[in-house]
């Protein structure tokens, strides 16, 4: 342990001297690697827009942001990270949407003494044994929203749920998270192919299984396909899912099929606090669309960073880290604090999909988990 912290200290010192050598003491250069093209670009665009909105509203000249597109490809994300660390000499990195990309970039970045603030991905490997003092997750640990869905299923009295998710690490985390909180029986458990677009076979199995409810985690286009086909199939069991499949970006594409579906989230546009109201109004004014979950996470990430910049200089890594860990900013989620592994401890809500005028959106109908951390915090020690 001693050797590790010595190396870490040396790394931090090196990072600090770089910052001074560049003459940008007081300034913070942020490297944002996110998905701006290809499948799933909507998520990265929302994170970027939320982040840049907060930066613009703060008007802080000391914040400089470099943005690059990872195309959702791990190898490109790694190249971009190397470039940002070595030639751009950024102080803080952020932006990655997907857990597999985060796993490729974050450990290397933090080992080189860069702060990493995650606006979305929260793989379990980085929350437990693989946690790092320079790694902060501002969104959630991957399991969280699914745990909230499991807790909601108990509250709703579901006893026999059919669960499905794509066969990849975040999909496995999803079903694990749901099962961690859910107390009833499972009518069936299916791993689908990642990127699958036709769910007729799975829906037929749901129909035949005698389940009383369905839980699914199918992010992006997969969720759209599933919901449309589910609505057309005549199966009318209640559906529960994490917010990803019911978010502002994709709800319009799902249409009527999503109406009334319950989903769990740490944020919604109707959370009643001043920061959130200001965010929702400013986002609509700036971009002409309703903000999504991802936009709120990008916005919070920027505000967390700005709050730390106001208190400490990034070249003093210990002080800057303490300022980040204090999380003294007005989160759009209301109460927000970091747990011992620098992942959020926050409230989770149950939302219902409604139609406001011509626009499909969500409203909060109740709480699911309050002051909820994650299951991996105990494994983390710095």
């Amino acid at each position, binding site marked *: 342990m001693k050797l590790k912290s010595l190396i870490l200290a040396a790394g931090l010192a090196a990072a600090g001297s770089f910052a001074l050598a560049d003459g940008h003491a007081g300034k913070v250069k942020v490297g944002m690697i996110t998905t701006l*093209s*290809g*499948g799933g*670009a*909507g998520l990265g*665009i929302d994170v970027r827009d939320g982040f840049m909105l907060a930066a613009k509203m703060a008007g802080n000249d000391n914040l400089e942001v470099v943005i690059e597109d990872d195309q959702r490809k791990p190898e490109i994300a790694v190249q971009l990270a190397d470039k940002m660390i070595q030639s751009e000499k950024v102080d803080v990195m952020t932006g990655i949407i997907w857990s597999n990309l985060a796993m490729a970039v974050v450990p290397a970045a933090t080992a080189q003494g860069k702060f990493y603030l995650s606006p979305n991905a929260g793989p379990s490997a980085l929350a437990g044994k693989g946690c790092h003092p320079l790694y902060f997750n501002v969104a959630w640990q991957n399991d969280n929203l699914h745990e909230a869905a499991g807790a909601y299923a108990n509250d709703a009295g579901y006893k026999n749920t059919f669960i499905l998710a794509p*066969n990849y690490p975040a999909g496995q985390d999803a079903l694990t998270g749901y099962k961690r909180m859910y107390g009833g029986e499972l009518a069936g*458990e*299916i*791993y*689908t*192919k990642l*990127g699958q*677009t*036709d769910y*007729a*076979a*799975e829906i*037929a*199995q749901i*129909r*035949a299984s005698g389940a009383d409810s369905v839980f699914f985690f199918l992010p*992006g*286009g997969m969720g*759209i*396909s599933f919901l*449309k*086909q589910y609505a*057309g*199939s*005549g199966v009318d069991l209640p559906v529960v899912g994490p917010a990803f499949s019911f978010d502002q*970006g*994709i709800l*319009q*594409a*799902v*249409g*009527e099929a999503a109406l009334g579906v319950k989903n769990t989230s740490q944020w919604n546009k109707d959370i009643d606090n001043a920061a959130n109201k200001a965010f929702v109004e400013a986002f609509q004014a700036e971009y002409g669309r309703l903000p999504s979950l991802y936009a709120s996470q990008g916005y919070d990430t920027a505000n967390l960073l700005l709050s730390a910049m106001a208190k400490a200089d990034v070249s003093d890594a210990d002080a800057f880290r303490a300022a980040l860990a204090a999380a003294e900013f007005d989160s759009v989620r209301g109460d927000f604090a970091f747990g011992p592994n620098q992942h959020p401890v926050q409230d989770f809500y149950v939302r219902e999909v409604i139609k406001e005028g011509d626009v499909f959106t969500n409203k909060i109908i109740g709480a699911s988990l309050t002051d909820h951390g994650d299951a991996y915090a105990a494994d983390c020690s710095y």
Partner: protein
Amino acid sequence: MSTILLIEQVLNGLQSGVMLFLMAAGLTLIFGVMGLINLAHGSLYMVGAFAAAAVAGATGSFVLALIASLVAAAAAGAVVELTVIRRLYDRDHLDQVLATFALILIFSEGTRWIFGSFPLFLDIPDALAGPVMLPGGIQYPLYRLVIIGVGLVVAIGLFQLIARTRIGIRIRAGESDREMIAALGVDISKLYTIVFALGAALAGLAGALVGAIQSVQVGMGEPVLILAFVVIVIGGIGSIKGALVGALLVGLTDTLGGVLLPGFFATFMEPSAATAVGSSLASMSIYILMAGVLLFRPTGLYGGR
């Protein structure tokens, strides 16, 4: 597993098979007649879906949307053939693959530029929404039955076109010997444009039909393209009949494999492990099928050459 569930899954397999056929038919025609590997075929599928979503959004009519998908994909196909593909016939396959791969990128970013990064909405018409009761107490979505019907009608029409019309004769002649039919005075470049546009229109129709039950988004064509390549390899390159048989085989294998394999492993394994192993094997099943077919019929089921 109950009989009803099995029949329902067979219908699902048929439905995914006939949609694959619409994609594979164009791909195999283009390869058979022009000897061209067209990776951008998936982009034409996407063009059809986006055109349908845009027209359905503007007019509210699903029929107009389908017509728009045919017209837009055929037009895009013809333009691409005239401007890019025409220059590739004499090049080797690597050049063709590179150029058509570039077309994928151009189509994807162009579509994003026009329609944005968020998925579009295209819904099935009210008249076709919801399930119907089939004999034997099987509840099945009406729209999927209609898709099976449309796919089979198109397949029959295509066979008639190839077998009984003058243009069909020319297409078959072009497949066998392109120098000879050029020498006989057939305008070969016009024939190529027509075949390419026809293949594109079929892909566009598939995109629009499937877009209504899936999501209309950038990049939706590439996963289907890979399956379509598997189909034409199994069926035999250049053979429409092979494309139909291959598409139905792939559709059924894919669907039934995903359902039956996890159940099969569950008979002697723990449920969660059986799900994981079964799902992984199911996603490989069509490639195993392809390898098996190639082992016994190296040119595919109906491949002549």
